Structure formats: C-alpha cells, structure tokens
C-alpha cells in the first residue's frame, strides 16, 4: 500500500514536501523512507477540507438560490445541498477508489469498495497526511463539481432525476476524469497541469451542465422576464465561495508551505481583479454597476485561477483574473444569447468558459520559480499550452458523451427528467418540496 502511494505521488501534478527536499532522489529510495505524519500539514488540510465543504451546501446553494425565481429558490438550494450529500456517500463507497485507487491502464483506479484496506495510520505521500484525510478532502471536490452543474438546469428538472443523476455522474464522469488528471491516469502522464481542479472540476461541471441543459430543453418562460429572487443571497453566496476557495486552492498543495501561501494570495488577487473587470465592462456596455455582475466576476476569477493557483506568480494572477472576468462576461452575455440555450444560471458561461481560459493560462504562465513541477510558455516550455489544450479537449469530449448517457439513464430510471408544465409554472418549491422559501406575513 505504502509503496503504491509513493509511486502514485510522483505522478501527481501537485508539489510535495519531500519532492522539494529531495528532488533528485530516486523514487525507489524514497519508497524505502518511512513516512511520519506531518502535524502542520495535517492540521492545515483538515481545516482546508472544512473550508471547501462550506462552498457547496452554503456558498454555492446561496449563490445559485438567489439567482433563481422565488418560487424555485428552495429547489435550487436543495440541488446544491443534495449534490454534496450524495457525493459524500458515493465517494466513500466507490468514488474514491475509482479516482485514486491503483491505476488500471491509465483509465481508472481501483482497490476496494467502502475504503476497506485503508488504515487510520496510512499516510498519503504528498504532505505526509493521513490517507483518510486525503479521501475527505477529495470528497468535497466531487461534491462541488456535481452541484456546480446544477446551475445549468434549475427550474425544470425533477428532483428524483437529479439525485439519481448526481450519484451515477460522480462514478461515471467525475471519478474517471479526476483519475486521469490527479490519480495517475493518462492525462497526468501526459503532463497536464491542473493544480486545484480547473479541468477536473470547472470544465467538467460546465460541460456537464451545458449538455444536460440542451437535453432538457429551455424553460417555458425562457425569454420572458425572470427576476432573481435575491441578489443579496447571491452576493453572500459568492463571498462564501471566495472564503472556501482558499481551502480549495491553497489546500490542494496538501501542505502548509510557501506554495500554499502563494496559491492563497493569487486566488484572492484573481478574484478581485476579475470582479473589477466584469464590473467595468458591464458598466461600459449597460451603464450599471450590478452586484450580480460583481459576484459573477468574483466567481469567474476564482474559477480561472484554480488550475494555475500553485504554479503562477502574483502578476500572472492579475492577467488571468482580468481576462477571466471579460471572457466570462461574454460567455454569459454573448455566447448564451447567440446560441439560445437555456443555461439558467450560467454554469457553462462562467465555469466552462473561465475554466477553459484558466487551463490554457496555466500552460502560458506556470512559473518554475513558484513551483518546479510546472513550466509554461513564458518560461520556455512552448509544449505546455498544447498539452493543456489536449487535456481540455479530452475532458470536453468524454464529459459531453458520458454525461449524455448518464442523464439518459437517470431520466429512464425516474420516468422522465422534466417536471410537468403545470409544476413548472407553479414552482418547484411547492410541487417538489411542499415548502416556501419565504413566508412573509
């Protein structure tokens, strides 16, 4: 078990403490070294895991909930909350081992179901943290990814279909892609850089959302006035996402070290500059400083810096964030209107578009002085951009096809994916949950 973990770790794109200390050491020699638990790293990753957890049932739920119409607010929140809940169960049953178990042909991992065989004392080589902590940390990523996709399909999907879809999607789409990039699969062998989940989380979720939105069709009221229930909730949700994102990006280093600190700072910088960029371009276009635009810019910046967080310096984060705000603005304002798909809350427009930009930007700006594991175009490694694009294309193609199949299966198992026209007009809070978001009286 231990030697497997060590050899796996050499394939991981994230930096490792021991790699920094003994970069020149042969893998075989390292394998013989007895790992001892690193208390500082363990404390930090425990904290980071809790931070990332907050992002889904609180941050994302409010971010999306505030944008939905008041008759669908609870349903929208419930999709994020239950995406996390389903992931938490599915991950320990089978998701983790498919993503991070022993590699089978570069395609998938597998050791055993129900985490059996992992002892409390087992250590993950990167960071010398308990394997069980790594399992929990990665679980929070699976949870947010499936919940992110829900933004494209709210206000018309049956809740039962969502629950079944979320469970199968994590096993059939998320786990394989996570394996390819982080679990020693073929994309990591190819050299794709994805520090905290630009490809695995954001492109993956964006494409999945888009595919399901296309299969499900537009909402009945598409094109009519559909007022967000509360921009206040959305801004609060975006701020909680921002807070949690420090765990997401700085936690992905799996160590309390300089790279984690750098990832923390560039994450903050990219979010801020992207909010400014979106707000400015929206003001130039529409003459209003909308809070919804500012919140959207924050999230676009966070998405774009995610794959780059542990590889780029602060000045690169300013460029990555600024461009993210602008491309996501056009993803939402141009692309969606031109192609007339109903990505309700812009899961693709923001996460897909800014995610793709972030993955490419990582190939351009990765600075070996920040992290020796990544060298980008600007530092003489012209191939990295092509490798990143290859990773993006593989993810898009696989996610699109596999998501379509998973959604079809979930739809058949639950007797049709779409709610009735009556239910859609009445609102899913009442029809699916028998509750109201607000009782103002």
């Amino acid at each position, binding site marked *: 078990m231990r030697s497997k973990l060590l050899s796996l770790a050499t394939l991981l794109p994230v930096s490792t403490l021991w790699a920094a200390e003994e970069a020149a050491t042969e893998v075989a020699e390292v394998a013989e070294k007895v790992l001892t638990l690193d208390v500082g790293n363990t404390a930090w990753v425990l904290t980071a895991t809790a931070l990332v957890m907050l992002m889904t049932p609180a941050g994302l739920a409010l971010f999306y909930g505030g*944008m939905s119409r008041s008759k669908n607010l609870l349903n929208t929140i419930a999709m994020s909350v239950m995406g996390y809940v389903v992931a938490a169960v599915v991950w320990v049953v089978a998701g983790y081992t498919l993503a991070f178990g022993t590699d089978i042909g570069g395609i998938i991992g597998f050791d055993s179901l129900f985490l059996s065989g992992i002892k409390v004392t087992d250590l993950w080589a990167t960071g010398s943290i308990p394997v069980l902590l790594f399992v929990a940390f990665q679980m929070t990523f699976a949870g947010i990814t499936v919940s992110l996709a829900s933004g494209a399909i709210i206000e018309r999907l049956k809740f039962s279909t969502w629950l079944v879809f979320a469970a199968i999607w994590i096993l059939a789409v998320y786990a394989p892609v996570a394996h390819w990039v982080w679990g020693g699969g073929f994309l990591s062998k190819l050299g794709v850089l994805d520090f905290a989940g630009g490809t695995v989380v954001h492109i993956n979720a964006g494409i999945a959302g888009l595919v399901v939105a296309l299969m499900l069709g537009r909402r009945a009221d598409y094109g009519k*006035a*559909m*007022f*967000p229930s509360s921009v206040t909730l959305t801004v609060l949700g975006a701020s909680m996402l921002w807070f949690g994102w420090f765990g997401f990006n700085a936690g992905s280093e799996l160590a309390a070290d300089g790279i984690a600190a750098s990832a923390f700072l560039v994450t903050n910088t990219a979010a801020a500059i992207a909010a400014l960029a979106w707000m400015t371009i*929206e003001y130039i*276009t*529409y003459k*209003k400083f*909308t809070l*919804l*635009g500012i919140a*959207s810019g924050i999230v676009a910046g966070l998405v774009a810096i995610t794959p780059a967080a542990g590889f780029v310096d602060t000045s690169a984060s300013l460029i990555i964030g600024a461009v993210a705000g602008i491309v996501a603005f056009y993803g*939402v*304002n141009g692309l969606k*209107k031109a192609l007339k798909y109903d990505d309700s809350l*812009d899961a693709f427009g923001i996460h897909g578009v800014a995610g793709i930009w972030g993955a490419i930007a990582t190939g351009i700006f990765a600075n070996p002085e920040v992290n020796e594991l990544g060298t980008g175009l600007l530092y003489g490694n012209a191939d990295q951009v092509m490798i990143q694009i290859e990773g993006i294309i593989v993810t898009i193609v696989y996610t699109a096809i596999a998501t379509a199949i998973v959604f079809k299966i979930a739809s058949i198992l639950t007797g049709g994916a779409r709610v009735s026209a009556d239910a859609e007009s009445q609102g899913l809070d009442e029809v699916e949950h028998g509750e109201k978001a607000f009782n103002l009286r």
Partner: protein
Amino acid sequence: MKKIESIIKPFKLEDVKDALAELDITGMTVSEVKGYGRQQGHSELYRGAEYVVDFLPKIKIEVVVVDELVDKVIDVIVKSARTGKIGDGKIFVSNVEKSVRIRTGELDNEAV
C-alpha cells in the same frame, strides 16, 4: 361622508400619517399596491438581460371623513406626499352612503 383614496410613494407614508394625525383623523386603512401612471415602470438588469418592470410599488391610504373636512384633508395629503417629481401619486374622492361602527352600532358621521 366622503372616502379619500390616496396613492402615494411608499416612503411618504409616515409623513402623510403624521400630518393626518394632526388633523385628528383617528383612523385609516393602508394597503401595499402596484400600478403605473405617467411615471410608467422602470427596467432592471440581470447578467445582461434587461427586464422592464411595468408596475411600481405604491401605498394606498383610505380615509373616510365628514364632508366638512374633505378639503382640509386633501390639502394636507398633497402637502405631505409631494416631492415634486413624477410618480407622486393621485387622490380620488367618492361618496360614502353609510358607515357603521361594529362594536357600538353607531351610524354614519358618528362612526367615521
């Protein structure tokens, strides 16, 4: 007896209520209403989608007073509700045929 219905800007409600209290008007009915007049609606912008809001929120105040007080009440409402900007609202006056105080059974002028 006349019923005086005033449609006013919501934030003017306190001013109008206080002004009417000074005239010893001892009761009123207030409703939150929506509508439009010359002010028309306004537009809201969400991620580049511009929605026109046709109906604006207003407050409707209904007071029933004895005939002699009508002009005074109208005057007070106009003064206290006016901002001088479009959308200040309107006042409608109509006849009231009968009124009853439910607790005592008093009628008409005794009951307003």
